[in-house]
């Protein structure tokens, strides 16, 4: 099974793997969600959505649907 940002537990860190889908909004890439960058889950709202992350030093929140499309490698 693919491991994605949606699988992260609170406080866990990971590295973003290749971004393959063109359904991932460009804005997310522009905010630093790029292959090789580090991502950490800081907090989730109730029911794990949205997810409050820090990616590449940027703090942002995304919904689980998008989070589950971004493959990661947990470190």
């Amino acid at each position, binding site marked *: 099974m693919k491991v994605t940002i949606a699988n992260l537990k609170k406080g866990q860190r990971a590295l973003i793997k290749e*971004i393959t889908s*063109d*359904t991932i*909004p*460009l*804005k*997310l*890439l*522009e*905010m*630093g969600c*790029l*292959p090789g960058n580090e991502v950490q889950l*800081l*907090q989730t*709202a*109730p*029911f794990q*959505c*949205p997810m*409050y992350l820090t990616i*590449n*030093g*940027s*703090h*942002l*929140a*995304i*919904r689980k*649907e*998008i989070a589950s499309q971004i493959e990661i490698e947990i470190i």
Partner: protein
Amino acid sequence: MAKQIKVSLIGNPNTGKTSVFNLLTGLNQQVGNYPGITVEKKEGVCKLPRGVKAHILDLPGTYSLNASSLDENVVIEILLNKKDKDFPDVAVVVSDVENLKRNLLLFTQIKDLEIPTILVINMADRMSRKGISLDIPLLEKELNTKIALVSARKNEGIDELKKLILSYASIPAKPCVDALTFAPEYFDRLKKAFPNQSIYKLWLVITQDVNFRKIDKKKPAVPPDFEIKSESELKRFQQKETIKRYQFINQVLKKGLIIDEKAATGLRARLDRVLTHKFWGYFIFFAILLLIFQAIYDWSSYPMDLIDEAFAWLSETTKSVLPSGPFVDLITEGIIPGLGGIVIFIPQIAFLFLFISILEESGYMSRVVFLMDRVMRKFGLSGKSVVPLVSGTACAIPAVMATRNIESWKERLITILVVPFTTCSARLPVYLIIITLVIPDEKVGWIFSYQSLTLMLLYFIGFGAAVGSAWILNKILKIKSNNYFVIEMPGYKMPMFKNVAINVIEKTKAFVFGAGKIILAISIILWVLASFGPNENFSNAEEIVTSEYVDLSQEELDQKIASYKLEYSFIGYAGKAIEPIVAPLGYDWKIGIGIISSFAAREVFVGTLATIYSVGSDEEETIKNRMASEVHPVTGNPIFNLASGISLLLFYAFAMQCMSTLAIVKRETNSWKWPMMQLIFMSVLAYVIALVAYQILK
């Protein structure tokens, strides 16, 4: 006059771009709109050394030149068009030292446009606290630019920035990175097709529509033999471009930016732990809402009472000082009460914008978006709908415009359609005056009174109506749209007094002058209609009444004459004509006129009643007292009783009575279909609910 240097301020949201703008221009600024669209245009004049002036344009905040909203698109439209009158001599990119990496993405894009570009690194005062150190000469060399290290909060570095602007001609205008190297074949062909143009600009024009559907297309013609890539391929290219840019930025910052993690203090993390907490987060949010309502109702009632009395006094004094005549009557009975109806709004609007701008400035609003997204999605809305719904409590117009950063069109449309249900400040005077008339002034417990609870209930009703209709619309509307959602969670900042103050003043001014014009015009028209009549019944009122009631005192007689005149004036006839429609709701013809006139804007209601009731009355009285003394001609009961009062409150809670909102919805949705649907749905709903309420309570 010497030529002004044209400067565009560009930057990501939350970088303190507006603070820099406020520091450069002071109060020397104006807010308008870009021609044809409703994007707010802020511009101002800045005095530079040696008597030179600069015209500063504060462009909407954007994360990149790949626009995904109307606001962001403005930036590209201006920067791509050399003939645009706002095309800058020099671009100033404002960045935040803590998010330099991300902010530089936009910077490298602006550089590619070959405009002289200055880089402002703002919030320099936070550097030591965050353990950040910068090698400015190295960054200037690598990025091929001039850097101004600024702390808008401490008012540091602005003079250096001004000097750089003054010397704009010597600021480098060449790109710092070639990001379009990932598909050499494609870009070579592009270059051949348009030999005289900048490749990056062409690329921007080609990809502009990928993320953002423009309403009007003004594309330069692409030669027919040029192969157009599919949308999906273009998106891939954009991803690759972004990666290239970040590679460059990372490489530069590796040398030029050092972060000592140990020196960083974790205030953000600690605050976030509480403010985004699964329980305390919501608890704090609702506590803040409660505080806002309390402020609007309780705290602002003191200045409002003063204003109300001041205008009654002003009207009275003018009347006694100036010689009597139709012109003086127009001033004392038409214009002054009409103006009073506008000015009385100021305390509440100022309070609302004060709270909203503090919440925005401090970075807290993003946490609310985060907390509420899941809940709002159940109703077809987005977490980002919370900001419009909260700003809707000030005014629906900025609220509708605030929906622009909602990515999903369906969620955005639903938000636009339901926002007018939230209790805007224009409803407040109507609520306040009716609540004081019909709800007893008694306390429950020790803080809350029945009156303020009623007001809060009305806010909940408005919010409930908004959320309820959103739920229905979500089921009905069959619109396919993406459901992505990205929100930046900015660091917490102490709101800057200057920014908050300017915002409150600007917004209040816009409301007073915008709404004021309509209200003033309507009060004058109403006064004319109430002061003249079509037939002898009006002109001979004095004789008719005097002969009918012989044994009345002079004072009672005057009152009878006044009301007789009003009844047979133009407005009286108009009111009588619609009385059958509003009678089942418990209203008389005077309230009917109030409702008709408030179809232009609801805040007109109080002004209208003020005008109607003050026509012919000589005593110094507040609007409230005049309304309280109105009795039904047949039953002798007060017109404003519990049943008619509640019915009126509910009518105003649901009805769509604001032409400006309809106009803005038309603009934002680009169709008359949605505003018309809003108008019909809300009006019918308001009528039915008010009818039911009156019939039950009467």
